């Protein structure tokens, strides 16, 4: 309790890290619901990894051409550019292949995941300074987030939240039943591009703050928990966001108290919550079966 009061104090030193985690904890699950609904969970694993490769590539590129000393842009902006360019390039490429009728093949996404992982490691091996920075990202060490980075995250995720809310019905329709959407005169390509754009921004921004593992965890686990607890799209969205925020807050408190890395603590905690909910439901089902007999 003392830890919780300490981290919620407005003068808490690491408050930006907490706020960053909370923003991602609330919004990422809402994006993750669409990844689950479109059966694109594997893409949710691959894109953060690809985004990380983009970060590493941007750092190495800058070091190669400008050296470490002459960096005239912040690490965050450099990482954001690298992450965004590679993430969107891959999304665009996959969307084009899908439109040509070649499907969103799992093999293709798996190959991209493996290559992105390998390229990230090779880039890190070639540049010691980049290695230190990106390793922190890979570990999910959410410690210090400058005000400007938190502001960019807030604006980016705020825009995502607004778009998901305002265009909820269109995004649901093209996700659930594309054919019906076309028969109703909807431009599915436009709505697909918007959804993929939202996924791209969410991942490329989120990876910079919490790293690929935690990003994937927040995208997928809270919606899975919410899907077990609520019925109806609105209820599931609310529960997923509340679970994401709760995990981000409790995970941060545990990590601060026990001196663990925040990101992995968040994901492990989300896994524990999912397991508890699943066990609770199984016990309840068993109890009701026994009661009927």
């Amino acid at each position, binding site marked *: 309790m003392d830890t919780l009061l300490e981290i919620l104090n407005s003068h808490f030193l690491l408050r930006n890290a907490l706020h960053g985690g909370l923003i991602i904890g609330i919004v990422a699950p809402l994006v993750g619901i669409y990844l689950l609904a479109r059966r694109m969970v594997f893409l949710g694993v691959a894109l953060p990894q690809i985004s990380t490769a983009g970060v590493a590539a941007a750092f190495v590129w800058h070091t190669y051409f400008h050296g470490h000393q002459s960096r005239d842009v912040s690490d965050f902006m450099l990482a954001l550019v690298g992450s965004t360019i590679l993430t969107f390039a891959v999304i665009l490429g996959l969307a084009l292949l899908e439109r040509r009728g070649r499907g969103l093949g799992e093999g293709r996404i798996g190959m991209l995941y493996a290559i992105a992982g390998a390229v990230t490691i090779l880039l890190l091996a070639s540049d010691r300074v980049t290695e230190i920075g990106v390793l922190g990202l890979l570990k999910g060490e959410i410690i210090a987030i400058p005000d400007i980075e938190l502001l960019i995250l807030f604006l980016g995720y705020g825009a995502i939240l607004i778009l998901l809310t305002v265009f909820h019905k269109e995004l649901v329709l093209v996700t659930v039943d594309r054919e019906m959407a076309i028969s109703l005169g909807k431009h599915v390509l436009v709505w697909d591009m918007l959804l993929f754009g939202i996924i791209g921004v969410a991942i490329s921004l989120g990876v910079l703050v919490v790293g690929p593992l935690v990003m994937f965890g927040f995208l997928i686990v809270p919606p899975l928990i919410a899907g077990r607890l609520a*019925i109806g799209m609105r209820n599931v969205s609310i529960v997923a966001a509340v679970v994401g925020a709760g995990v981000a807050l409790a995970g941060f408190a545990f990590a601060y108290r026990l001196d663990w890395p925040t990101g992995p603590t968040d994901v492990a905690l989300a896994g524990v919550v999912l397991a508890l909910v699943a066990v609770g439901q199984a016990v309840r089902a068993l109890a009701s079966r026994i009661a009927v007999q």
Partner: protein
Amino acid sequence: MAEAIVTLQDVALGYDGIPVLEGLTVDVHAGNFIALLGPNGCGKSTILKGMAGIIQPLHGRIRCVLNGQPVRFGYVPQREAIEMVFPLTVFQVALMGTYGRVGPGRPVTHVEREQVQACLADVGMGDLGRKLFTSLSGGQRQRVLIARALAAGPDLLLLDEPLSGIDLGAAKIIMELITRLHQDRGLTTVMVSHHLKALREREAVREVVWVHEGKLLRGPVATMLAPDMVFRMMDAEIG
């Protein structure tokens, strides 16, 4: 004769630029009820998708106009095509029918919600609005999908195998429902089906179009569903 609301003129339909059907010329008049029949894989669903604008013709022209306005479709896809992962309730699924006339960013109004509730009641699902769509039986899901199509306020109801994969009792209820909607609302209907018995029993079905070896053969129910005709049309499947 009533106005033709859908006209296909020398149309070729297919996927990835490869035609499945060519030289199709057919029209659907307002108030008609047409059953589209043929062996598996002959292209019945492809024709339905062409009419609904889901696939564009590779050649020729498809005109869908009623009283100078674009035709509003109530499309009921094959039930298996909607494998819902979203945890949508019955009401939320039916509500999708209104999304065509509610502009992007606009919320669905109270009046439209009431219309959707009326559509659900019309198909006998009015009390199940809060249930999870995926928890329903095959026949119940089919009725919800029909309610969703009705919520679009359609001029033309397009049903793709609404009786497949459901038991005989449920199929009878669905067929009675479709017949009632056609008769009570004067709803123009095109239905893909394999259930010849169900079609023969319904006087509402006015015409049958057989899709056979890439050609369309059209005529009244009595002629087109005569045993020798059925045998001839289905030989590809039997043989």
